[in-house]
């Protein structure tokens, strides 16, 4: 995102007009145009940040007034086994999901980044799961991973392998969810990578070919550095999203079997909207927020080592 700010700054500098004579009320007009976002900042950014910080230090059940409890919710969280388990589940899910999706999206983008006949059609096929809601995906996934009637066990059976219980097996539920999430999200990330690949100047490849560089070396020394910026963006976006993953487990497993797929935001949702412990839910939200922030900062620091901006 540093690039974004830098570019935005540059664009703004270019934009600064040589101040021709303007409408006298222009500032008022500009203010009026910007007013929806000013309201947004107050109601949908500043308020939630401050309010959730306040509520995280209270006991609040929506009925009686919030009662100040200091860091009580946070100490409770540290002793809450379910919280730690959901954090572990979330991390496990992220470790399986993020690298797999990124690698697959890159591979597909490279395969699609040439003049293939019917390329638009292929791209569309990869995008259908992207535009589907998780509710639709849950039923599509059931057609595949249903232990009795699903495609997956049919395929295993074809190869003479034993059937699995997939989403109903505590050991397999998170890997299965991660596979479904990759299936759903890979098309979007693939298009991001396609954009990155198409921004690499063709001459670099031509020059490398003339110098006799092998296909692997061209990939290693031109393609990979060329798309490192996109890769960084994809990694930041997906890890932020993954830490907050909720809809998929809410719809597909409801955290089961036996809490094996309960992710942290599902825990938050239950505390807040099923047990009406808004204070405790806010405390969980803040811990997650800090984790997301920390992870993003670490990624920004690490990017200096491997991201090249041409």
């Amino acid at each position, binding site marked *: 995102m540093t690039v*974004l*700010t830098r570019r*935005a700054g540059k*664009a703004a500098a270019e*934009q600064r007009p040589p101040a*021709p004579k303007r*409408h006298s009320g222009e*500032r008022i*007009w*500009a*203010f009026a145009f*910007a007013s*929806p*976002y000013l309201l*947004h*900042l107050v109601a*949908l*950014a500043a308020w*939630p*940040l401050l*309010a*959730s910080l306040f*509520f995280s230090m209270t006991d609040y059940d*929506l009925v009686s007034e919030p009662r100040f409890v200091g860091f009580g919710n946070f100490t409770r969280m540290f002793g809450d086994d379910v919280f730690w388990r959901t954090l572990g589940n979330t991390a496990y899910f992220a470790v399986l999901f993020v690298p797999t999706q990124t690698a697959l999206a890159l591979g*597909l983008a490279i*395969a*699609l980044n*040439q003049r*293939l006949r019917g390329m*638009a059609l*292929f791209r*569309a*096929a*990869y995008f259908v799961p992207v*535009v*589907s*809601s998780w*509710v*639709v995906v849950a*039923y*599509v996934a*059931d057609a*595949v991973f249903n232990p009795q*009637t699903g495609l997956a066990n*049919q395929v295993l059976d074809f190869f003479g392998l034993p059937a699995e219980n997939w989403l109903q097996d505590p050991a397999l539920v998170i890997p299965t969810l991660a596979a479904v999430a990759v*299936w759903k999200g890979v098309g979007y990330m693939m*298009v*991001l990578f396609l*954009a990155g690949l198409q*921004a690499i100047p063709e001459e670099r490849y031509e020059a490398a070919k003339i110098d006799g560089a092998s296909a692997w070396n061209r990939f290693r020394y031109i393609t990979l550095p060329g798309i490192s*910026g996109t890769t960084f*963006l994809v990694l*930041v976006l997906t890890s*932020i999203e993954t830490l*907050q993953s*909720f809809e998929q487990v809410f*719809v597909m497993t409801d955290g089961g079997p036996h809490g094996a797929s309960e992710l942290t935001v599902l825990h938050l949702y239950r505390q*807040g909207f099923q047990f009406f412990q808004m204070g405790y839910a806010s405390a969980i939200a803040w811990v*997650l*927020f800090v984790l997301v922030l920390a992870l993003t900062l670490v990624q920004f620091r690490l990017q200096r080592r491997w991201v090249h901006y041409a």
Partner: protein
Amino acid sequence: MRKTLSYVLVTAGALVMLVPFVAALSNSLKSFAQYIQVPPTWIPDPVQWDNYAEVWRRTPFGLYLTNSIVIAVLAVVGNVLTSAMVGHALARMRLPGKQALLTMALGTMMLPTVITIVPNFLLFRSLGWLDTLAPLIVPYWLATPIGIFLMRQTFLGIPKDFEEAASLDGANPWQVFWRIHLPLAKPALATLAVFTFTTSWKAVLEPTIYLTSPENYTLPVGVLSLKGQFVGNDQLVTAAAMMSLLPMLVVFVLAQRYFVRGTMSAGLKG
């Protein structure tokens, strides 16, 4: 050689993407006996088209559909209009604190939704908006950071000559925006519109939290609620899920290039 390999890889991938949809579609056309039959049949026999009619007969599916459409359309109109206005202010108008506003837009883009769930619920509760469609629409009328960035970028690229000519003719800033800049930004507006539509159509978390009466449900929440209602009739829920995807697919097929363009511009922005 390399092309052949790519074809094989890409086709295999496309099959992996689409075959599950076909399997679910097949499930939605089975009788329950066939739905649970082991080993499964691929082609339903007989094909029970009536499952789809049954969903309409036995559920308020039409209401869910209407709610989803009303929310999505109003969200699209609101987000496109307000994001364009704010983007226009940031790109073409003399706004004090412009740079600070831009930085804050960037910051809110990184703000995780998880932090907003509880406070927004409380905010909408105090406004008396729970169990109405308002919490699912009104936020889109306050512009979205992504929309602002997309529109600002677009307006920056429009030459100044038009606007100067119009100003000389006595047009006020709103007329410049509405009659000159907005029509020139049509592709970006379309991109933002399809993205907003998709986000709104797919949402599960927000409608789950804000809506309690079945007559206010959107399609995802409505279909989800059928799960408990149709125990032993999973083929009907699958049919309902397939139907809830249909309008989205139509929009996607009609506006495919805007989806791709939008995703690409999101990537280039980073």
